[in-house]
């Protein structure tokens, strides 16, 4: 099946094309085509995984060259798929979660007139995302990279008849593109340094390259990763991206696409391994983001935005892990996988809640939904426990390892990074509990028009499956470091290092902080009444609520000056460049008008012109000679 892995990309792609071109006649059944395509992709992936697991020894993976992409010349790129543990992990995550979400969407989007189009976009996303993770070169990865960006754009802007949704979509795409500059430049650097952009050549030569080169490439890649994964300072788009339908948020902006940055860093391990400075920057970016996301999450009343902030924060964890080098890579991916499950589950839960609440997203209008939406409550609850890192749920196994790893190292780094991870855990516990309690507990604060009810099976079953994953996947994968071993061919074997403080202490501290956060949240939002209108809040709250004024900063630093620049240039182009030409043209005419005076119609003055001409010419020539 590994050699058929291309089908996993081709089928959703074909399905997407079919759905887009089929037109209205496919409206009634088109979504099932989408679901089928996704399912087949999953099956193909699963087959490949089984085949890989069946191979003995290490899993070096295989490269499947499909065709020459850019042939000959200096730059030689093939369209090739790299099937190795890392990519297959992603394939499984994407297709599995993706397929579930497809099913979920059938019900969720039932009443939308453009459901067929929605599924086309979803399939397009699946294909692009698979291409991203399966690509065997940075160039092909970039294909998928941009492809998922496009899909994300299309899906965020799915309801773009609302102007702010269209703006959100644009914002997502544009900010992503800022990151893409990094990838383009990185490819340029690789071409300059190694003469190629495929993984094999680049990674083979990377150890010999100078640190400076590798650092530069690493930083460029980080820029790309920041854009895609909503890491500081390119995080601002993710919150707005919640404009898309909730399944989209679950799939793209929680489970898969946003984690592509982490994938990129881990995939580029050979480069980062040779560039400790770049790694440190990755880790710091991760740390900053995880705290930033957490703070924002604490202040948001919009359930999806709170979840988005949480996503940002969790990816911060992954980046932090990825920045730690070989000891962190596997955990980064591990957390990525578990996060994919529990966060997707929670998003679907949120979707279910919104479904029940007439698409209301304000948690202050929720409350006491536990009773009406039991399945949702349970599944969401499992996700909640997982993200909190409560043992033995999935999140515990992955997150705790990251916190431990963050404390490894010398000097100030373990203290700062580890500290951030630790504090982050507490904050996570607080805001996630806040979200959970505000939604499902306390008093019902909804209006009379709203009649909450449990969602149909088509929606709840995927939620249940994801909940199971949230609960037990971590345990399964962590047992015997099964997952880390699986990934070793890609991430390399990590030597064991002792953290600067003993591991049990770390675990204890983490748990304590988690419990503290959860308790505070319970006291404030579970037991106490939640005001329906958001209180003014302290400066910190306002800051967090406004995403640390990221938008304002962007507006002030980039958008406004950009607009001014553009306007000035447009004016300048007309007035100065074009103006100069026109002015010069007018100058000729004026010269003509001036010269006209000499042609005054008087024959005597004509004769004078001639005579003066003769005299002057003769004078010059005779004197000259």
């Amino acid at each position, binding site marked *: 099946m590994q050699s058929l892995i291309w089908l996993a990309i081709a089928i959703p792609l074909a399905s997407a094309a079919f759905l887009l071109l089929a037109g209205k006649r496919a409206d009634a059944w088109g979504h099932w085509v989408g679901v089928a395509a996704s399912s087949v992709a999953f099956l193909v992936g699963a087959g490949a995984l089984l085949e890989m697991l069946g191979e003995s020894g290490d899993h070096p993976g295989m490269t499947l060259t499909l065709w020459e992409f850019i042939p000959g010349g200096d730059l030689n790129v093939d369209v090739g798929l790299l099937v190795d543990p890392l990519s297959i992990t992603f394939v499984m995550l994407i297709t599995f979660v993706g397929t579930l979400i497809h099913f979920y969407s059938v019900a969720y989007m039932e009443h939308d007139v453009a459901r067929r189009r929605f599924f086309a976009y979803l399939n397009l996303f699946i294909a692009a995302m698979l291409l991203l993770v399966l690509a065997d070169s940075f160039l092909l990865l970039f294909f998928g990279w941009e492809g998922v960006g496009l899909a994300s754009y299309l899906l965020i802007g799915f309801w773009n008849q609302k102007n702010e949704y269209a703006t959100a979509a644009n914002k997502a795409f544009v900010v992503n593109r800022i990151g893409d500059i990094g990838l383009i430049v990185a490819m340029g650097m690789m071409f300059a340094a190694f003469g190629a952009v495929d993984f094999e050549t680049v990674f083979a030569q990377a150890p010999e390259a100078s640190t400076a080169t590798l650092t530069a490439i690493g930083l460029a890649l980080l820029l790309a990763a920041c854009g895609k994964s909503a890491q500081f300072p390119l995080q601002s788009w993710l919150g707005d991206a919640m404009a898309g339908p909730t399944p989209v948020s679950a799939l793209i902006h929680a489970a898969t696409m946003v984690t592509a940055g982490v994938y990129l860093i881990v995939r580029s391990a050979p480069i980062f391994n040779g560039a400790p400075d770049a790694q440190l920057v990755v880790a710091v970016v991760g740390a900053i983001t995880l705290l930033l996301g957490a703070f924002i999450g604490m202040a948001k009343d919009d359930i999806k935005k709170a979840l988005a902030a949480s996503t940002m924060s969790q990816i911060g964890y992954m980046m932090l892990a990825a920045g730690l080098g070989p000891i962190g890579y596997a955990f980064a991916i591990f957390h990525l996988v578990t996060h994919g499950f529990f966060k997707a589950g929670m998003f679907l839960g949120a979707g279910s809640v919104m479904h029940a609440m007439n698409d209301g997203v304000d948690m202050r209008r929720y409350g006491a939904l536990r009773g009406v939406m039991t399945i949702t409550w349970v599944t969401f609850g499992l996700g909640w426990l997982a993200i909190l890192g409560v043992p033995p749920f999935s999140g515990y196994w992955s997150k705790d390892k990251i916190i431990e790893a963050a404390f490894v190292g010398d000097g100030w780094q373990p203290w700062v990074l580890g500290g951030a991870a630790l504090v982050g855990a507490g904050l996570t516990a607080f805001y996630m509990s806040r979200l959970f309690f505000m939604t499902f507990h306390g008093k019902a604060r909804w209006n009379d028009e709203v009649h909450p009810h449990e969602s149909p099976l088509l929606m709840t079953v995927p939620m249940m499956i994801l909940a199971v994953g949230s609960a037990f996947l971590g345990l399964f994968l962590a047992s015997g470091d099964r997952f880390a071993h699986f990934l070793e061919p890609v991430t390399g074997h990590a030597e064991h290092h002792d953290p600067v403080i003993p591991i049990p202490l770390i675990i204890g501290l983490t748990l304590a902080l988690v419990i503290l956060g959860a308790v505070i949240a319970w006291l404030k939002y579970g037991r106490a009444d939640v005001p329906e209108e958001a209180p003014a809040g302290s400066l910190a709250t306002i800051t967090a609520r406004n995403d640390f004024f990221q938008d304002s900063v962007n507006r002030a630093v980039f958008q406004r000056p950009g607009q001014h620049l553009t306007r000035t240039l447009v004016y300048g182009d007309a007035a100065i460049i074009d103006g100069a030409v026109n002015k010069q043209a007018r100058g000729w005419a004026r010269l003509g008008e001036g010269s*006209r005076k000499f*042609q*005054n*119609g*008087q*024959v*005597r003055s004509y*004769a*004078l012109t001639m*005579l003066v001409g003769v005299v002057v010419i003769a004078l010059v020539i005779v004197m000259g000679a």
Partner: protein
Amino acid sequence: MNYVILAAILFSIGSAAVLLRRNAIVAFMGVELMLNAANLALVAFSRMFGELDGQIMAFFVMVVAAAEVVVGLAIIIALFRARQTISLDEPAELKG
């Protein structure tokens, strides 16, 4: 050479007349003077070189000048018939 210098002076005076006089006939006489000046120079050179070419040229010039005068005066008369004036300032509608 003296005659040539004299010719140069006459030539200049003739040209000045063309430039300065508003009466078409007077200006035309200026042109005639210029031609005559050229003739004088030709004859003077002819004398100096001891050959007849210059003289013959002068002879031709005289004939040509006569023909030219005929045409010129005819034009002036035609213009006079139309405008009742021979001032050169008057016909200046073509300009610019």
